Each structure stands twice: as C-alpha cells, then as structure tokens.
C-alpha cells in the first residue's frame, strides 16, 4: 500500500502530461499539488507505522536478473527514508501550491506541473529505494527533471545551455556513482543496503576496496550536491522558474548527496581517508561559495551560492562523521532556503522579472508580508537564536569543537560569511531608497500561505531537536538513532554548558555587529553595483578542458578520420586501380603475343614439374 505514496505523483504527472492542453490551467496545478499532499499524508501514516512496528520493506518486482544477481524494485521505510519523504513531499506540496500562483500566466503551465510532479516521483524513488541500483534510478531521474525544468523556457539559448551543463555535470557524478555500485557488487556481491552493510560491518577499517567505493560514491554526491569542483552548474541552474530553484536546487535534489552519504555511513565510517576528503571538499566549497555570494547582484544567484555554501557545511558535518547533524541542518536549511527562494520569486514576480538586487531597494513598505518572512528566513540562515538555523548550526559547531578546533573556527568564519551576504541581500532588496519602477504585481493568496507555513517552520523547526540547554530531549537525534550509532551523553560537564552559553549569547552579538556594518553599506547610502566575481571556475574549465577538447575533436574529425584513415583506404583503392591500369597495357589484343606468352609459360611449367620429379 505504501508504494502508492511513490506512484501518486507519477500518476498525476502522467495524467497532466497525457491531457496536457485539454486540462484547464489551474486544474493541472491542483492535481499535482494534491497528489503530493496525498503522498505527504501517506508519509505521515508511514511515520506512525514506523513508530509502532519499526522499519519495513515493500517489494514490487524484479528489475534486472543476471548470472545469479538480482535487482528488484524494492522500497525501504525506515526513520531516515521517512524523514526524507516527509521533507520532500511536505516542502514539495507547499512549493507546488505556490507555483499555481507563480506560473499562472505561463502558457506551458501544464507541462511545468507535469515535470515538477515527475521530479517528486523520482526524488521519492531516490530516498526510498532499499538498494543502490534503485537509488540510481532516482538519482538520474531527478537530474533529468532538473534538466527539463532549468531549460523550461527553451526558446532561450542560455537557459538551454544551463540545463545541458547541469545535466552533464551531474552525469559526471552519475558515472562515479555507477562505478561505485559496480565496485560494491564486486566487493560485496550485492547492492542492497541491508546485505552490504551487514557484510561491511565485519570488515576492518581502511580496506582499499571500501575506500574506492566511498570515493566513487562521493563523486556522485559531488555532482548532485553541487560541491567543488562540480558546483558550477548550480548558479547557472537559476535559469529555471523560481519554484524549481526552491524545490530542486535548494530544498530537495541537491540534498540527495547528503542523504546518500548518510545512508552509506557504515561504509564511510570504515574509510577515514574518504571522510577526510569529504571534510576538505566541504570546506573548500563552502568558503568559495560564501565569498562569491558576497559579490553577486542577481538575487537568485546570491541564494544559489548561499545554497552551495550551506551544502558545503552539511558536507563538513558528514566529513566529521556527524551524519545526524548534517541531516538536521539539511532539514532546517530546506525550510528557510525554500522560504527565501519563494520570497525571491515573489519579488521577481512583483517587479516583472527584475532580478538585479541593485535595482530593488525599499521594498519593505510595499511588500510587508514578504519583508517579514524574508527577515525570518535570513535570521534563520544566519543562525540567530532561537530560529531553526541557529539550533542546527549550534549542533554543528558543538560537534566540530569536539573533533577539531580548526574545523570549529572555519565553521565560525563560514557562519560570519553567511551573515554578511545574507544581510547584504536583505538590505539591498528591502531597505534604503527605492530603485525600481513603481508598477508592482502583488502576490495572490495562493502564493502567500505556503510562504507563511515555511516561515513558521523556519522559526520553530529547530525545536524538533531542542538541545539540553533548553531542557529539550534532542528528539530528532533520538529519532535517527535507529539508523546511526549516535553517542548521547547524559551528563553534561560545566565546560560543555559554558560552551553552549557562549554560542547562544555570542552569536546574536556577532550578528548585530555584522548587521550594523552591512546596514551602513547597503541600506543607508545608495549602493553601487561594484565588483562582480566572474565564474572563475567556469573560465578555467573552458580554457583548460573545453577549448582544447573541441580543438582535439576537430583534429580527429578532419585530420585523423578524413585524411589519415579514410585517406589510407583511398590509397589502397587507388593502388588497386593503378595496377589495373598498368596491367591493362598487357591486353594488347594481338593473338601472336598471347600465343608466345602461353608457350613460354607452358615451357616453364614443364621444366618446373620435371625438376620436382
């Protein structure tokens, strides 16, 4: 029955796609939104069933059977996958409702919803599959939907390029992921989670085969979760409609890598080396993206780099082996980043497609609802207590401090960076003088209530895991402890409490200082659109890889293929032809000459034969 949860969005997508033009404009939207709400409800049922009976599996049938190996369509409901289901369908449903308002003037409204619900289907396959090959279906499937939605307005050449880039960057990751699966098959003889982890837990740490699996899977995660060096597709992916950016490129798809590594925690815990690699990649990604976000003028790109940076923080948490913390930050990030993106969408919608923050300003009075909710989102992402982001970041900082003080200070620095670019974002858009035309589109109700719910979640979402400091029970971590071995200390030393208090009280102070600085820079004076960080990594790829590669391809096509190989063949043909021409001269047609040659040959033959005898 629970498999219906996955197929409800697929069904809706097929219906919308099949009826396409015959379906009136809002109907498709409601159909999609309601189907995902239905999945969410079923997810809740699964959640409660889980509470009573523990993890369970639903098998639908065989997919590939070869030489004693068998891969099936089979879905695992445990606390991790159900958490993902609730996040994907919950936020998915809200964004679907929002999109009904946002896309209502687009003539391809129905196609949009067909793709968007199709995406949710693949995302559910990704998080629910009980084996890596099934996950692979979702893994490539979400990439496909991402491609279709980034390039949704396909008349625009640049959007198509962005879509293709996203697909190919992801494809690099996908190949890594497949190779990881194959290595896993060769090592463990299986790709099912239960059997792989059971066999892996018997191994000693540091085995090269396991490290190889981990690195291959990591390449997949780097592609999907937009980490260095493959993150460059994500900022370009903002070409898609804003609900897409909110759902796919902020809240759900890009967290697939985080989910996958958390899911494979048994393997990663066996490979300290790959955890180090993860840590380093997370730090590099987060730092680069944080810096670049400071120098962007497109509001969606600011948010995109912010997403990359926050994903980097989750990856850092993974690298520290704190999978539950990574997942918690992923959840709160899904709340506030979806909120921020939807508000960005409202602003773009209101300003008739304007995305440049330097042409905004002073929107506080014009869009009060958006202002307040964006403020909430900003406070949540910067980690101001008691908003949700603060609690997840605090958990992250605490874990980092336990492991390694260097990482702790790097994280503090990254959080400061976050505060800078987010306050800049807020100040440029809402405060200061108005720098835009006054003709505004005001958001309809259907675009506001999902934002409101996300705002509530951004404020209170953190209390899913109320820390001990507030006499909470860390419910979220306990919930996940059926999947991860999480160490809970019941006794908290004075030292730890002091540390918590310092974080709690220190962060608002730091944030206030940053706010004052950014306020002076971007809200009081008329801000100048100054230095823009170009996409440096893109340039490097273009110069080092793409251009030489295309030149090489051209060389292959013209010189090697045409001249060398084909030329060699032509030479053979020509030489045959030429020898024919020479031989033709022997065909003189003079009977006497022929007879002479015949006689000579006969004499020669006779001599030869008698000589042999």
């Amino acid at each position, binding site marked *: 029955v629970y498999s219906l949860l996955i197929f409800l969005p697929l069904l809706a997508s097929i219906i919308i796609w099949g009826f396409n033009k015959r379906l009136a404009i809002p109907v498709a939207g409601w159909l999609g939104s309601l189907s995902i709400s239905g999945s969410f409800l079923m997810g809740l049922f699964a959640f409660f069933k889980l509470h009573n009976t523990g993890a369970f599996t639903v098998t639908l049938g065989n997919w*590939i059977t*070869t*030489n004693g190996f068998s891969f099936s369509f089979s879905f695992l409901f445990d606390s991790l996958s159900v958490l993902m289901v609730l996040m994907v369908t919950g936020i998915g449903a809200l964004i679907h409702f929002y999109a009904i308002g946002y896309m209502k003037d687009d003539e391809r409204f129905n196609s949009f919803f067909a793709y968007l619900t199709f995406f949710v289907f693949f995302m559910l396959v990704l998080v629910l599959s009980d084996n890596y090959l099934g996950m*692979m279906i979702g893994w*490539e499937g979400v990439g496909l939907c991402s491609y279709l939605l980034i390039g949704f307005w*396909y008349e625009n050449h640049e959007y198509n390029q962005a879509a293709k880039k996203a697909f190919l960057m992801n494809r690099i990751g996908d190949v890594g992921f*497949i190779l990881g699966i194959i*290595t896993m098959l060769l090592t463990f003889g299986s790709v099912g989670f239960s059997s792989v982890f059971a066999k892996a837990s018997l191994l000693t740490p540091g085995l090269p085969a396991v490290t190889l699996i981990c690195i291959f899977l990591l390449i997949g995660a780097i592609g999907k979760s937009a980490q260095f060096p493959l993150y460059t597709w994500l900022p370009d992916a903002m070409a898609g409609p804003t609900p897409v950016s909110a759902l796919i490129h902020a809240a759900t798809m890009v967290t697939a890598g985080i989910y996958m590594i958390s899911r494979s925690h048994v393997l990663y815990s066996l490979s300290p080396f790959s955890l180090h690699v993860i840590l380093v990649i997370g730090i590099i990604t987060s730092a680069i993206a944080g810096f670049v976000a400071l120098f962007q003028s497109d509001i969606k790109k600011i948010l995109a780099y912010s997403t990359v940076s926050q994903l980097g923080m989750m990856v850092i948490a993974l690298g520290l082996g704190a999978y539950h913390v990574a997942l918690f930050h992923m959840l709160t990030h899904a709340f506030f980043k979806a909120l921020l993106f939807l508000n960005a969408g409202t602003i773009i919608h209101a300003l008739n497609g304007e995305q440049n923050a330097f042409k905004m300003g002073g929107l506080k009075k014009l869009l009060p609802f958006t202002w307040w909710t964006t403020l909430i989102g900003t406070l949540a992402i910067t980690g101001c207590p008691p908003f949700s982001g603060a609690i997840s970041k605090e958990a992250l900082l605490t874990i980092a401090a336990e492991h390694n003080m260097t990482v702790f200070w790097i994280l503090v620095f990254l959080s400061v960076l976050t505060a800078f670019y987010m306050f800049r974002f807020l100040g440029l858009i809402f405060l200061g003088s108005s720098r835009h035309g006054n003709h505004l589109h005001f958001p309809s109700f259907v675009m506001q209530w999902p934002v409101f719910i996300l705002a509530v979640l951004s404020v209170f979402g953190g209390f899913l895991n109320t820390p001990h400091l507030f006499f909470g029970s860390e419910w979220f971590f306990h919930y996940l402890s059926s999947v991860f071995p999480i160490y809970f200390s019941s006794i908290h030393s004075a030292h730890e409490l002091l540390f918590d208090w310092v974080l709690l009280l220190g962060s608002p102070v730091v944030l206030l200082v940053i706010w004052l600085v950014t306020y002076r820079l971007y809200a009081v004076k008329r801000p100048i659109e100054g230095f823009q960080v170009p996409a440096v990594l893109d340039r490097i790829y273009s110069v080092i890889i793409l251009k030489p590669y*295309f030149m090489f391809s051209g060389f292959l096509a013209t010189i090697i293929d045409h001249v060398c190989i084909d030329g060699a*063949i032509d030479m053979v043909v020509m030489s045959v032809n030429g020898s024919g021409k020479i031989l033709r001269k022997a065909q003189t047609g003079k009977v006497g000459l022929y007879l002479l040659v015949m006689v000579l040959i006969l004499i020669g033959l006779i001599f030869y034969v008698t000589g042999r005898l």
Partner: protein
Amino acid sequence: MMITPSVLLLLSIFSAAVLPFFKNTSVSKWVAFVLSSLILVGALILCHFSYYGILPMLDSLSIIMVMITAISIPLVILSTFQFPPDSSRYFYSLIFLLEAALLSVFTTRHALIFYVSWEASIIPALLMLFGWQKPRLNTVILKFFLYTFAGGMCLLFSLLVLYYYPAGAHSFDIFELIATPLPHHLQIILFLPLFLAFAIKLPIFPFHTWQPETYSSASTPTGMLLVALLSKLGLYGILRILLPVLPFGSEVWHKGVLVLAIGGLLYSASIALIQTNFRKVLAYSSVSHCCLMVIGVFSQSFQGIQGGIVLMIAHTVNTLGLFYMAGIIERRTGTLELDKLGGIKQRFPLLATAFFVLLLGSIAFPLTNGFVGEFLILWGVFSTHPILGMITGIGFILGAWYMLNLFQRTMLGATTTSEEHTLSLIPLPFSSLLVIVTLCGSVVLFGIYPKPLLAISAPIAKALSAGVSK
C-alpha cells in the same frame, strides 16, 4: 503447420518475387506490410517453439537475431507509408531480398551458407543505395561496397582455412567447427582476418570511414535498415563464430580489441560532438555504440557479453527511431544541417517528446532499454579490467553530451525554419505514429521490464564466458 527457418526464407523470397507485380503504390505498400507481418508471425511461432523446446530449431542467439529482423522490417515498411519511395514495388521487393539474406545468415549452421548469405545481403543494400539515394554519390557507395566486400573476402578465407585445417573429416558445420579444437598458433593468426571481417561490418573504429558517408547519403528507410540490421551482422558473427571457434585466439587478443574499442568509443563520440549534420551525429553515435557492444562482448565476463547482446537489441530499436526522426525532420524542414534547424519542439511537441525518449534510451538513462545493456557492459569490463572500465565510463558522459547537443540544436531554441516549409506542418499520419509509439514504447517497456531480454541472452553469455575463461 510446420514452421521451419526455410519456410520463412521461402516466404521472404516469394514476397520479393511477387511485389514487382503490384504497380500501384498504395497497393504494393499494403501488400509489403501484410507479407512482412506474416513473416513476423511465422518468426514468432518459430521462435516460440524453439525457445520452449517444442521444436528446437534455433538457439537463443538465432532467436534474438530472427526476432530483431522480423520486427524491424514491418516497422521500416510502415514508416514509408506516408511518403513511399519512387517505384516503391522494387524497393519493397529489395527489402524482402534483404530479409531473406539476413534470415538465412541468422538461422544457418553451415559456414558456407553463412558466407554466401552474408555476401548476398550486400546486394539488395547496394541496389537500394544506388537506386534511392538523393544526391548520386557513387564514390560513397563504391567505398561501401569495396569495404564490405573486402571484409567478406577475409571471412571466406578464414572459413576455408577452418574447413581444410583439421585432419580427417572436413566440415562446414559451425557447431562441429566449434567442437574441433584448433591449435593455439592458428587461433591467434586466424583471429585477425575474422575480426577484420566483423569489425568492418559493425563497423568499429578504425574501419568505420565508409559508414558516416553511406548513412548520411542513404534514403531514410535504407539508412534504417543499414544501421539497425546490417550492422548487427558483425556482432552476430563475433558471437556465432569468432568467440566460440577461436576461444584461445580471443583470449589472447581481447585486450587489444578492448583498447581499440574503447579508443573508438571515445574517438567517435568526440567526433559526433562536433558534427554539423543530424545524420552524421547519429552515424558516429552508432559507431560509438558498436564499440561499446564490442567492449562488452570481449570483456570476457558473463555480464559484459549479456550486456553486449542486450545493448544490441536496444540499439536496433533506438537507431530505427532516431534515423526515422531524421527522415521526418528532413522531410518537413528540407534540411538536416544543425545550423539551420531549431525550435521544432514549438511546432511539434510530440516529435520532440518522442525524440527525447529515444535519446534517453540512447544515452542509457535508467528505466530505458539502453541502461540495462550499458550497465551490464560497464560491470563486465570493470570486473575484468578496472582501469579500462573507468575509461569506458567517460564514454557515458560524452554520449549524453552529443545527444543533448543534438536535441538542443534541433528541437529547442526559437523556430528558425523558413516559411516555405509551413506546408509540411500537417500532423503525422497514423502509420508514422504507430512506428513512433511502438519504438518509444519498447524503449520504456524494456527499460522497466528487461527480463525477457535478459532471460534469452543468459544462455549465450553463459556458454561464451565459460568457453573464454578456460
């Protein structure tokens, strides 16, 4: 009723003989379609009986090949319904001659008949190229002929050596040839001409240069037949003769073949990336896929061989569809130059969707037919040669790249086609839709439910991988 391979063969030849008498095009196309369907039904019965051992006349490999042929031919005929070729009765007659030759190759166990039918299949293909190509590029066709004929000579030479070499009873029976072990040095030497014969037919790098020109100058149905069926002769030869008769030679040479094929995979994918003609992209993509099949088949592993066979089936479906798309686009826009195309999705959303589904199959997207084969190939080659496996992975990225480029440059963007072609905006007729839906449907169907393909290819893979690893 007894259905034997010879009945199908005779039926094909009979069809070829009868068709020229139907002068009216609208009649002859129906006659051709009905006859080809009849052969398909016969083939289904035959394969059914053989598979379940009721009347074991064909082994799994033959069943696969016969089914591919019997299914493709009615589809190709159906695809010509809207715009039948000039003097279509002769064209259809040639299609049936081709079918007869192919069925004969795929069902015989006599090596000499194998060779004769192999060569016989070139003749109708050649006539189709000569009679129905658009610009008359005789040099291209001459090259095609000489190339494949040279390959055929290598085949004949090798088969004669195989016949004369064993002391005692000489035999042309392929199964007896398999049963007779050959000395190692002969296997090593004989591998080369045989491989050359099959490599040219497929074709794989570096014996492919006849192919892009030929494919792009052929008329649409001819191109479909060439790429979907004739190229499969090469792989069939490898599976039927090369690997089982020369197991030791294959083992010695397999690394060389793998390197050659992986090089060819990346090489042709790179060239496909910068082609400016729709059909040429498809042609190089086909070379690339053929290299991939060879990689699988020579990976010396069960999965690789099975993957090679499954990919071969998928490749038939996908290339039939893609070459048909090329034909439709050319008919409607008057060009296949990518610079002049664009924005077709705006006018023909259906065409764009169908093309995208075939594209997904061709780039091995999960839940499409291409994925099963390519996944198994990658698994196979990675299990025996990890480094080569990783390089093969790069081919997956390049494959997606050139196909998405192709999609973007034809389907996406703003409409660029000029006004003179607004006439051709009439919707696709039912016959074309039927072809497209059948092909796209099987892309998805065999992606979700590949079980029949895997079941029927398993015994072949088992036999070959057991023979190789000895």
